[in-house]
């Protein structure tokens, strides 16, 4: 038993060192007003793979937990579940600090780890000592082009009585703004600048409908 565990850890380390685990996300974000989102959806439908199938919709509820350890910045963990597919596992996600880089870097690079979990993850995190910072519901469309994932989504506020909109007791969730958030991202392992170039090239094709760019959260 010990031997098999040893080999498992060894193989994990080897995998980590040999750069095959996809733990970096190359990302570009932008927004578009509600009045123009139909045009964007049509264009994305033409540009992305699988033109024959209608765009995939999604309806997710995301909760953001944070835990404070002394003298270090708080660790932020996100728990996301699909409201329209309740049988799919919940997702625990860690997103690292985004590196914007200089002008030569086409996209934001941030480390991203996501793990499938059961629905007890909220209880688990609460037991660990995490607090719920905020939560929201996001609904929209997903597209795919090669390795890139493009999402066009609208953020909604969670109604208190609603618990994610499954039952209609609190009423439908309210949108936060009159616009949609557009994101283009690729999750890959370290050091793939060609992928970032591809993301930038694709984002340029969506101009002038939506300007996708590196967003610096600290300067917002």
């Amino acid at each position, binding site marked *: 038993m010990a031997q098999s565990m040893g080999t498992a850890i060894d193989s994990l380390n080897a995998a980590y060192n040999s750069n095959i685990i996809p733990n970096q996300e190359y990302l570009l974000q932008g927004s578009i007003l509600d009045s123009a989102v139909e045009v964007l959806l049509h264009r994305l439908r033409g540009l992305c*793979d*699988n033109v024959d199938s209608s765009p995939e919709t999604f309806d997710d509820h*995301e909760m953001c937990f944070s835990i404070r350890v002394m003298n270090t910045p708080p660790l932020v963990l996100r728990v996301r579940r699909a409201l329209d597919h309740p049988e*799919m*596992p919940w997702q625990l996600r860690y997103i690292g600090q985004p590196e914007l880089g200089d002008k030569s870097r086409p996209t934001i690079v941030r480390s991203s780890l996501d*793990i*499938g979990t059961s629905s007890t993850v909220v209880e688990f995190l609460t037991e660990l000592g995490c607090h719920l910072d905020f939560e929201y519901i996001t609904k929209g469309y997903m597209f795919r082009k090669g390795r890139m*994932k493009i999402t066009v*989504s609208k953020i909604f506020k969670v109604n208190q009585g609603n618990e994610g909109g499954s039952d209609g007791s609190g009423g439908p969730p309210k949108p936060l703004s009159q616009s949609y958030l557009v994101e283009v991202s690729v999750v890959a392992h370290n050091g793939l600048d060609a992928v970032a170039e591809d993301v930038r090239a694709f984002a340029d094709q969506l101009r002038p409908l939506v300007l996708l760019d590196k967003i610096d959260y600290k300067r917002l």
Partner: protein
Amino acid sequence: MAYSVNIAVEAPVENQIQEITYDGQEIYQSPLSMSENLSKLAQKIDFTKQLAEDVKKEPTDSSESCDDEANSKETLTYQSSLWPWDSVRNKLRNALTEVCVLSDVLAVAKEKRYLVLDPVPQEPQEVKQMVQVFARKKALAGAASVLLNGAERLRTSHNEMARNRNTPDFHIELLRLRQNWRLKKVSNSIVGDLSYRTAGSKYAQTGMFEVTKAEEEPTAGSSPPPSPTNAAPPKPGSALRVTVPSELQGVAYIEVLCQKDQEDLCSSTINLLGSGTTSTNPDVHWQQKLEAAQNVLFCKELFNQLAKEAVQLQAPIPHMVVGNQIMATVLPGIQLIIGLCHSTGSDKKPPPAPPPQKSDHDHVLEHSLHQLLREVHHRNTHHPFPHPASGAIGPSKKRCLAGPIAADRYDLLQMTQGQTLLEQIIQQAQHFFMRLRTEYVLDTIAKEVKDPLIVSHWNALNSPTQSCVKINIMTHGYDTVCRTSLVVHVGEKSLKCVCRDGRVMHMSYEPQELRDLIFCQIYQHQINAVQALAKCMGWQFLSNSAHLGIGAVEPLGNASSCILASPTGDRIIAVRCEPQTGVQVAIAQSPRKDFFPGQLVKERKWENLGGSFKEVRWDKMEGKNFLNKMELLMASLTSS
């Protein structure tokens, strides 16, 4: 050597030139006559002055009187009394005033505050503008004539083409081509792609084709066409020509044969296409050419994939790949042969060996192969989307769930394994044969056995690897009395039979097993039917046995029997059914007819025990079928 040159010495011209006419003639001022000379000299004398002063002032006055406009103020000399130079003095003063005024005006104008000098507009010179107008008109006329010539030429050529619609325009053809195929312009040639790469294929061979203009016939163009009867090509042709790569030319298809075992495994040859549509015809339309090339590429990819799998798979009887044929064993004694038939137009005629296998070409399996490859392509492009949306694209739903449900290594390995194309097509072929055999067995039994009727209903919905058939065994005229049903699931290499009473029986691919089963079921049906009939007739059911342990051992199945008693109890019928020898019926009477009290058995009451059974000659019995006969027998034995 010095030559003497005549030199003429002349005085210079004394008279001034007054005028030079246009033809170069000089007109001299005529020399002064004597009187004129004298008056000129006299004018120079100032008679009003004294001689000495006159002499001094003369030169100054004369100089003033000669140039009267350019003098400055210092020459102003005020004369106290009038004298003969007064007019001169007045004139000078006037001149001075004028000059002063002029200088003041100039000074004021220079300041530009109160007075400004503006140029007086010149009158337009009409003569020059007309020249310009004429020049421009001529230039425009020249340009217009060039343009009109060009337009005229275009119009005539367009009308020509509209009249001879035989050869359509290159650009319109290109537009049509572009609507169907992907084209790209590379340097100065047009290149297209007919492979399935964007549909998900990962095959290495490219499907590039080139588009060029078709050669122009000498009669086309701006010259008026000669009479259409001569030198016109038989077919109109199109304006563009596509060049497909040489390995994709021609027509190809995948031939699938199922045949029984040959003694010599390599003897089955697949003949190349005997059926028409050779594409040697260069005038074939580009759409058909491209479609044929695409089909060739698809068949090549399919065959390549199958051949790779045939070599890699470990089967109990190994698959053989020879040339462009793959041979796989489907069932013992039956082989599946998949071959790639590719005929280019340049081949010689195929040898006239009669292709009897050609009629065996299984179109259904060929279509299945195409569908399977298309499914592989589809899976390569349509990856499931992640839910929730922040997940990774790619893992299937099972794979996503594998983490939370703590799947072990074995489960994960199972998830990665899938069936290859060859395995799938072999399974489909196996199922096809199983179905065929099952149909044959059921049809044969239905033809042979008339007494209970065998009715089989095949399910309309089935899959390529599973079908179901429901079999009803019933007697004609008594179908409401008793009916035995069973369902047979036909799989790839086995059959599963589910009976009404819950028994499940698994059979192998041998058809004899199903036949035996059906026969057993038939005779069990008879016994059950007799029991049901007895209920209808009012006869009592005394006992039955599905697997009788008495009597001779049956070669097939077990005998079954039942014993019935009449309503009054005085008659007993015993029936024994078994698949090999059929039906035996015997009857007994309750009060024995042949009771005689003997030494051991003295009393009369023992006659009620019942007599021995006497067999009925069943073939002489009246009745259409077994149940009918039983009914009549029961009816005849019933005594009220």
